[in-house]
């Protein structure tokens, strides 16, 4: 399982997304690799990802890709991340 955290530059908000996703995965008892990508390389990186995490407006810029895109509004709200990963990931409902 690979999750791709996409932000503009690949080092600010995407990093926050990765940290929050890793915390949320631990809370859900799920295992996945979380990688950060900048918007420029997101479409290529999406080829090997199972899920994409990003913001609503960057999701529009990524466009149509194979894996589902989950958009996060509040990057410091762990609860939002947990709930969205819970419904998006197989095994997350358990």
């Amino acid at each position, binding site marked *: 399982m690979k999750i791709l955290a996409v*932000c*503009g*530059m*690949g*080092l*600010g*908000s995407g*990093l*926050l997304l990765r*940290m*929050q996703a890793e915390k949320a995965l631990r809370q859900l008892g799920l295992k996945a690799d979380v990688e*950060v990508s900048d*918007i420029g390389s997101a479409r290529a990186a999406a080829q090997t990802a199972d899920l994409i995490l990003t*913001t*609503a*407006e*960057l999701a529009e*810029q990524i466009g149509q890709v194979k894996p589902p895109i989950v958009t996060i*509004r*509040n*990057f*410091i*709200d*762990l*609860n*939002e991340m947990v*709930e969205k990963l819970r419904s998006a990931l197989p095994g997350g409902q358990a």
Partner: protein
Amino acid sequence: MVGPGSLSALLPLRAIRLRQSARDWRDAVRRAGEALTASGAASPAYADEMIATVEQLGPYIVIAPGIALAHSRPSPAVLRTGLAWVTLARPVRFGHPENDPVSLVVGLAAVDDGAHVEALATLAELLSDDVRRAELLDAPDAAGVRAIVTAYEHATATAAAGGTATATTSAPAAATAGATAAAAATVRDTASPGGRTQIRQEGEVEA
């Protein structure tokens, strides 16, 4: 232990500016650029690069209600990794559909994709705690902001050394037992009705 990549190491006094005036989002980002320049993390050109990032990619840097993480990529304008903390006298709109208006601009100058990870993680922990966020935003001066940061770092380092959970460890700055209880309560229940979070008020409501 509190090391060279810690938040307190990367957020010196000179990079903290409170109740700054900004007439629009560009001005607000410029205040963050000035703070990064003052601390030696960036040259003045970096402010333009942070502004250009928003112009190109949109206001996605507004990462939470009221909070923008202004940054660009490593460039000759970045002199060393550093963070800036700028609160605004009057919130400004960045054009974000949900998280506007912004009253805190965190500036980030990064030399690579790794040196700021620890500091950013600490900052996210502090800001996601309603009580500590309120304390940080109400701090009377830059020294007050740093005192909360260093107290939190020491508390978490001590807790980690003792092998206990750090999530609800309260920094000494969170003076009262009531504040501690509120922190514990809000950590467990961060879902606010309708997903709306008032950046200043939630901690007070809980307390």
